[in-house]
């Protein structure tokens, strides 16, 4: 280090900061990988940027490409990212189970980290190997075939994402995050619920939690606005006392 500037920083501050920016710069492909994940989480599809797919498909060449005419590839990559996100969502349930068994936050943190890393690797593989989506399973006929099936047909296990239990898991985690002051995490969990269950059975509870989160973060104006809208849309909701209590909590 040489002398000092008037503000007390070293004279070579700009040289140091440029070197720092170079050292910490995102690696090739990171921007597009994150873009895809954000698009999937928010349900924005290909609209968050068409440059994503081409980059992801080649395993992460740098560049802010992006042009028209890449929509099919973009959809493929987004489908891949969606698969990765589904893995993550299944992991949420797995982790919830682990937490229930052990009762320990440590297990939660460790398992989540491990599985999210797996999901990230899976996403990378899927990006590279993105192919047209596999054909959908043939729909079951409404009427049974002529011959009665002697044994009960082995139906596939219901999607874990479609169950009330999964809605409950996400919202419970969001509630815990709010009460422990982990507001960003709560925001993400509520967003995941909204993404996975836009018409879910617990949407009123989700909205009530969202209002509570806003209150806890000090965004009272937005909280009151959403509460008024909620009251208008769900005048008989069982969540109204919960919302009123949350709003009173900061008064």
């Amino acid at each position, binding site marked *: 280090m040489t002398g000092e500037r008037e503000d007390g920083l*070293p004279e070579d501050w700009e040289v140091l900061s*440029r070197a720092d*920016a170079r050292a*910490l710069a*995102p690696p090739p492909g990171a921007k597009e990988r994150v873009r895809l994940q954000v698009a999937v*989480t928010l349900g924005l599809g290909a609209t968050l940027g068409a440059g994503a797919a081409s980059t992801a498909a080649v395993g992460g060449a740098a560049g802010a490409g992006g042009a028209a005419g890449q929509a099919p590839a973009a959809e493929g990559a987004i489908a891949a990212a969606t698969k990765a996100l589904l893995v993550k969502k299944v992991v949420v349930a797995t982790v919830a189970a682990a937490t229930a068994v052990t009762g320990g936050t440590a297990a939660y*943190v460790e398992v989540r980290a491990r599985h999210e890393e797996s999901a990230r690797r899976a996403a990378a593989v899927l990006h590279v190997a993105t192919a047209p989506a596999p054909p959908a399973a043939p729909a079951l006929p409404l009427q049974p075939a002529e011959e009665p099936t002697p044994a009960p047909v082995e139906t596939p296990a219901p999607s874990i994402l479609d169950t009330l239990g999964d809605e409950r898991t996400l919202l419970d985690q969001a509630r815990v995050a709010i009460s422990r002051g982990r507001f960003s995490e709560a*925001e993400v969990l509520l967003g995941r619920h909204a993404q996975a269950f836009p018409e879910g059975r617990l949407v009123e509870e989700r909205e009530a939690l969202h209002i509570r989160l806003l209150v806890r973060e000090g965004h009272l104006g*937005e909280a009151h606005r959403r509460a008024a809208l909620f009251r208008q849309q769900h005048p008989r909701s069982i969540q109204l006392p919960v919302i009123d209590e949350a709003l009173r909590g900061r008064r």
Partner: protein
Amino acid sequence: MTEGVPPAALALARKADVPTAPDFAAAYDAEFEAVWLYVRRLGVPEADVEDAVHDVFVVAHRRYATYDPSRPLRPWLLGIAFRIAAQWRRQRRHEVALAEPAMDVPDGGQGPDDVVASEQAKSQLHAALAQIDLHQRAVVVMHDLNGISVPEIATALDVPLNTVYSRLRLGRAKVAAVLRGQ
């Protein structure tokens, strides 16, 4: 050097509860690197930074109603990034505390900044920043590396103006001392 705020990224054009997809995509393109560098400089390691940046943009999208488009976008985004980085650090500290038995910890445990320091001695400045308090670091980086004004920082971090000045003064002094080798 200040990584100034590009005019194109000063604000999302329209005010609504949710930004339009093209506006959000433009903001993402303009601000991705700044957000990335900010969370890295706040101590989130390379292995976690993609998740952290993802969370920043997801939260920004969902909280768009709280953004004032008459103000520049970057400070608002970095304010979100600060909260997410702080959350990561709390989580990391908790993980380390639970994962490592006391007898295996030579120097009182590896905190987030130790992780950063051991992960990369890539940059002299980064190593110096890792030595200072997170709140001071958040201000020094925003002001002296991102070129954001003190009033904007106060708004973004939701702290009083004088607190920002104080953190900036203390943070600068510590960084300079570390860089001098004191």
